[in-house]
């Protein structure tokens, strides 16, 4: 290994290309530094610093956004910067910002250190941004584990709540298991792709492009196919696809509400992006991928809808409904195998899901008491009367999740359906109809609780429910922006539609 090549390698480490991630990391570090140097009474301002920093980054990212972003590699192929990556940076920054806002609500109800929470949040966000841009298994695994370990901590963050720790432990063990499975799959792929006895073998077997080339040359290698399904299993855990979705309700219920939102939106979004990347890499194995993903999509959709049907804890409900959303997105992934427009549809769906989910989680954080795991539908009784604003935001959010026009969720579903229809996934579409119909039931039950029931039981006494948090200005602003965005994106897709459909 000569110096010149090493220099070339080092020169390719284009740190400017990952400026947002770097800045985010610096911001995270700055938080820790600030906590040390600032007097204790100013510590309560640190979340605001974090949020403003993220907001600034978001603005920076949006301003620098160009639709015609040229695809380029950096870090010797560890990362690929594509237009989708740019979009997803926005997605994760937005998610982090919103999680941060919700956290201010939820953390206020606990006496726990704040700064570490935001620090970890920012690091995880940066890792997610890198994760979706990674083009190399080492990079992918490292970023993924950073995200996962960060999430282990965040899920168990409310350590004074026993249920939270239980959720953390469950997430930890199942997450570690899925990581192991994923890793073994990576190892197998690495081993096979680098095997000099096989045609098309490659020296950089961890690189996804090389791997793709190798797989294209060996379309029916046993070990490769085993590796692929093991990797898929690991990713399926992240996106909560059947049958790796079983952890979802327990963990979602136990985790702090903002972390649940983070899991539901950002982690799932990252998972889907990884899945898209992998699906592209594994595309020579479509014979395996297509049926597996199709069945997975259908089963995920049905299981999520059915599981949520009789659920009355709203966090579990959001979890299970999130599973059915994963089914819709998987449908898009399957369709993406043959229809490039499906990718745009997935992105759009993710954004719609982000807006709607955070609207709902925001309301949940405000409605929840100090015991974060105890959030029943019945606690929403009379919400419309006490706080019409929250009820409206909730209704818009849930409506969008249910796919009701003219909200963004509908357009997302419409695009996915169009893509699926173009790809000829008629069976999945039939399942999707059933899923939508069932989901309308439980979303509507929730809305019904908020709007139709008065909050008093039949004998006139108010049902016991935790006290609701008054809506602060920031929370109100963010929630109304989310609701507005959900409506706007349903009626006018404008720039986002063009970003996502110009292909």
């Amino acid at each position: 290994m000569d110096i010149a090549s090493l220099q070339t390698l080092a020169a390719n480490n284009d740190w400017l290309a990952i400026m947002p991630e770097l800045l985010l990391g610096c911001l995270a570090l700055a938080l820790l530094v600030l906590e040390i140097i600032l007097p204790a009474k100013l510590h309560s301002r640190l979340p605001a610093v974090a949020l403003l920093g993220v907001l600034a980054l978001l603005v920076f990212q949006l301003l620098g956004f160009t639709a015609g972003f040229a695809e380029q590699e950096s870090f010797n192929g560890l990362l690929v910067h594509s237009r989708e990556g740019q979009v997803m940076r926005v997605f994760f920054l937005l998610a982090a910002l919103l999680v941060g806002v919700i956290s201010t609500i939820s953390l206020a109800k606990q006496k726990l250190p704040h700064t570490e929470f935001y620090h970890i949040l920012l690091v995880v966000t940066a890792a997610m941004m890198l994760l979706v841009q990674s083009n190399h298994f080492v990079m992918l695994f490292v970023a993924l584990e950073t995200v996962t370990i960060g999430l282990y901590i965040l899920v168990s963050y409310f350590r004074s709540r026993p249920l939270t720790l239980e959720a953390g432990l469950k997430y930890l063990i199942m997450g570690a298991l899925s990581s192991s499975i994923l890793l073994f799959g990576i190892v197998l792929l690495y081993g096979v792709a680098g095997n000099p006895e096989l045609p098309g073998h490659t020296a950089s077997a961890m690189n996804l492009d090389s791997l793709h080339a190798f797989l294209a040359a060996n379309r029916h290698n046993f070990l490769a196919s085993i590796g692929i399904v093991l990797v898929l299993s690991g990713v399926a855990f992240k996106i909560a696809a059947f049958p790796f979705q079983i952890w979802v309700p327990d963990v979602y219920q136990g985790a702090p509400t903002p972390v649940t939102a983070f899991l539901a939106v950002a982690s799932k979004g990252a998972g889907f992006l990884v899945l898209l990347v992998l699906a592209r890499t594994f595309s020579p194995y479509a014979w395996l991928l297509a049926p597996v993903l199709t069945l997975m999509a259908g089963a995920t959709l049905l299981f999520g809808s059915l599981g949520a049907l009789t659920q009355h804890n709203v966090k579990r409900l959001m979890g299970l409904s999130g599973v059915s959303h994963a089914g819709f997105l998987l449908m898009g992934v399957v369709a993406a195998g043959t229809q490039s427009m499906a990718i745009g549809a997935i992105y759009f769906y993710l954004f719609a899901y982000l807006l709607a989910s955070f609207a709902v989680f925001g309301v949940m954080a405000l409605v929840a008491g100090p015991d974060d795991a105890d959030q029943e539908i019945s606690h929403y009784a009379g919400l419309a009367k006490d706080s019409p604003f929250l009820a409206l935001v909730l209704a818009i959010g849930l409506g969008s999740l249910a796919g009701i026009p003219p909200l963004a969720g509908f357009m997302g579903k419409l695009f996915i359906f169009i893509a699926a229809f173009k790809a000829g996934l008629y069976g999945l579409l039939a399942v999707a109809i059933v899923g939508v119909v069932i989901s309308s039931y439980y979303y509507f039950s929730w809305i019904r609780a908020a709007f139709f029931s008065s909050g008093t039981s039949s004998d006139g006494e108010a049902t016991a429910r935790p006290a609701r948090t008054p809506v602060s200005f920031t929370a109100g602003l963010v929630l109304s922006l989310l609701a507005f965005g959900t409506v706007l994106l349903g009626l006018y897709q404008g720039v986002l539609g063009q970003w996502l459909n110009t292909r």
Partner: protein
Amino acid sequence: MSNLPFDPLLLAIAIPLAVAVAIACGLPKRWSIRLAYVGFAAPALMALHAWFYFAGQTQVHGYAYLTNYSTGLDGIHGLGISLKLGLNGISLPLFVLAGLVGLAAGLYAIQSTAERLKIYLMLLLVMQAGLMGVFASVDVVFFYLFHELALIPTFIMIGIWGGRDRSYAAMKVTIYLTAGAMLSLIGLIALYVKSGAPSFDLITLRQIIAARPLGETVQNNIFALLMFGFGILVSLWPLHTWAPLGYGQAPSSAAMLHAGVLKKFGLYGLIQIALPLLPHGAAHWSHTLAALAAVGNVLIVGFITLAQRDLKQVIGYSSVMHMGYAFLGIACYSVLGAGGVVLLMVAHGLSVALLFLLATSIFHRTHTFELTEMGGLAQKTPVLAAFFVAATFASIGLPGFANFWGELTIFVALWQYSHCLTVIAISGVVISAVYGLRAAAKVFFGPPTEAFARVAAQHPPSDLNWREKVPALILLAALLFIGFWPKSLSTSLDATLHAVYAAPTSAGPTAGGPAVSGK
């Protein structure tokens, strides 16, 4: 383009929506009500303008007032979704219907004593905007989207202001209608994808399909999706059980708008989209559709209506039954049949809205919907009785009311399709007369029942007041106007249907019967 300085169709949608938003933003009650008048009147005015000046409009691709608003998805690479508004001869009558029924329902709601009136009005305005949008949309996605926009308030209104069983009813209606909407959505997507059209707008779809008709199997499958999807929305037997329940529980204005206008969405979709674009599919499924409609909707539901003891149930079931005629008209696949369906839709919309309005007015006086507990109301409220009898006769197809034209043309068209079904359908006319007159008699005529006498002693019933009378008069006047001058709708309807149905006639449906009767 219109020859008005503004786009009336957009205003008809935007004004109620804007008022709804304004109310949602916390307008004080007094101003909310004042603005609500504007919100309901504007669409009606636009509709009336369109009705009387339609002939003078320049038409582009058969559409008057055609305008296009981008959504960002209509570029070269987009899916071709844009807010395209316009009216043709098929949508004009329904646009008018939506405007008039919306106005009546709105006026009736404004004067009602509903709790939380502001939210009620807001929801109703959203519904009104959706309804105007449904019939003004040339783009299929927006056509669907506006339907759902109008549908959501229905659920909420049933859930909050509904009757005893509101919870169950709201749930059932939601699930049924979601299922129907989803099926039809898939059908519409299928149409878009299979035709290979670059855009969802009907004009393009028609051109593309005219140039390159879809294969037979494809047509059959898509038509099935649309037929059953729309069928659920329009309460095709045996997918109808949501309708009587929902209408029974819905508050009056919601029932008026839903049963009167929104339900017509499915039929409108079949006539405007499914029949012209999928002639083979229509031919393939017509027998099933006709059999279900004739035996199920007309006969079975007709008899079931006879067994009802609740006034709203009678109206609800009768509405299901009349939808049977509409399906029969569609099954004929002829200009006459489809035109008859459009006429019937308008007429039925007006009459059923009137009936629901009057049923609520009756309830305010009798405090019950049970027919066995009423009687002799006409002695106290002759005007109400007169309105109700008129509405009943309208709904059972008495000439002079708009309904007659719809039923007659459908029967005439149906004879050409099937003699046997025509006989079944016409027998429905007798059945509807039986339950209609029986209900009217039970409510109004004869001596008062004991139960009603007790109620009347406590709350002496007063006759129809002006706030109830004005909306009722709007509807009744429209029924009579169309009844006496059907040409006001049929001329443009005929022209459009000929143009639309003429294009893909390779399946062999005929445009009409032998020449002329009266000339």
